[in-house]
């Protein structure tokens, strides 16, 4: 059986009955596979899942997120990563293995309120997610505009193989760092480009459910460039 058309579903709605695997946001009740969330059902290759249209961000290993430092202890920082769990950033991640709480000043590196681009190293719900800022494109964010969108709309913003975000970046001359948690940092040398990029992101956030969104965004980007 090949893939069926995507359907709008709400919690409790039966998506299908039959020999399918119940995956993301679905549960099997007797013969039926039902949705647990408002979203779009996707029956594909013998498995059923629902793409959510609402809900918060749940950390996943290897996700790039943007966080804000909320506090620190003598061994780690905690960062708000726009989720129900806070990110733990160990001090040794910044200072190296020979970190000593007596000699190194943690606030000198990252103070409360600082923004960071981080990656989720490990998360299993029993403990708060462990994050790291060592790596390419990670670390403290010094400049740019912070934009918040719904985490469910991040894949839409990126587009197929990054097509949407590349289009925005190239036509507005800006750089967008996308956190999977719905926080974005937009930076550009050109203030008009920056504004336009933010407008485009807001348009995508509003119109995420529309089919020919790419054309709409393209139109919007071109119309104001005159």
């Amino acid at each position, binding site marked *: 059986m090949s893939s069926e*058309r*995507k*359907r*709008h579903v*709400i*919690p*409790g*709605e*039966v998506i299908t009955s039959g020999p399918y695997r119940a995956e993301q*946001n679905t*549960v099997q*009740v007797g013969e039926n596979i*039902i949705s*647990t*969330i*408002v979203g*779009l059902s996707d029956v594909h290759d013998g498995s059923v899942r629902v793409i*959510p*249209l*609402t*809900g*918060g961000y*749940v950390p996943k290993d290897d996700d790039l997120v943007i966080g804000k430092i909320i506090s620190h202890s003598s061994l780690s920082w905690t960062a708000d990563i726009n989720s*129900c*769990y*806070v990110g733990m950033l160990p001090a040794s991640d910044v200072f190296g293995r020979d970190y000593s709480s007596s000699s190194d000043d943690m606030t000198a590196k990252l103070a409360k309120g600082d923004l960071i681009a981080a990656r989720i190293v490990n998360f299993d*719900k*029993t403990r708060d997610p462990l994050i790291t800022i060592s790596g390419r494109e990670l670390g403290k964010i010094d400049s740019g505009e912070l934009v918040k969108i719904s985490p*469910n709309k991040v894949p839409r913003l990126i587009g197929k193989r990054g097509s949407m975000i590349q289009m925005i970046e190239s036509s507005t001359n800006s750089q967008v760092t996308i956190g999977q948690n719905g926080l974005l940092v937009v930076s550009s040398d050109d203030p008009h480009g920056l504004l336009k990029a933010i407008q485009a992101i807001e348009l995508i956030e509003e119109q995420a*459910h*529309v*089919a020919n969104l790419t054309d709409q965004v393209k139109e919007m980007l071109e119309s104001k460039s005159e």
Partner: protein
Amino acid sequence: MGGRDTDIVLLDENGIRCDGRKVNETRKVTIKAGVLKNANGSAYIEFGDNKILVGVYGPRDVHPKHMSDTDTGILRCRYHMAPFSVGERKNPAPSRREVEISKVIKEALEPAVMLKEFPRTAVDVYMEVLQADGGTRCAALTGASVALADAGIPMRDLVAGCAAGKAADAVILDVNNEEDQAGQADLPIGYMPNLKKITLLQLDGILTPEEYKQCIEIGIDGCNQVYEIQKKALQDKFFANGEKQ
């Protein structure tokens, strides 16, 4: 205006109730999802003359910390009546009745929400009754489940609420304030329509076994009608100007 009319005719000879409904008819129900910007999920429900606003927060950190559970998320519900929701001013402090209703609504929602997916967190449901006219617990429950779905909390099913009862010796659906005060019995039901399971069942009054069976039957029927409206509220919010249908 004056005081309450005690000689009210609950059911006339044509089988029409005091507010013009038939015995098996619910009041007009309208629900709107996503009415509050600052809550993660919200709903506004009008159930006849009942007007209730529901806000859902979470999953979020549990405070106080000792309430958190390492195995599962917890659900906390607060049902509250505004001072102006009834004829005589109601003291805004939580009354015995409100504490009870908060508890039964929490227990009616728990079988539906899947909080195992968010251990160490809490989901808070705040139900604010702006105007009350009998059957607020069913209306609040109905609104709360729409608000939870709006917040994206995973649920096995929506929970629809509707009361059945007995007034003027007849089994009636969706008991209003007059029928509740002057009638013989009130039986609120919370029901998961797809799973066909009852999550809330209370009875105030006396019913014979036959009447009880009849009440359950029409009550479930009422819940199914309410469910269709819940479904429409969510579809209106999420799929209104959409495609792919």
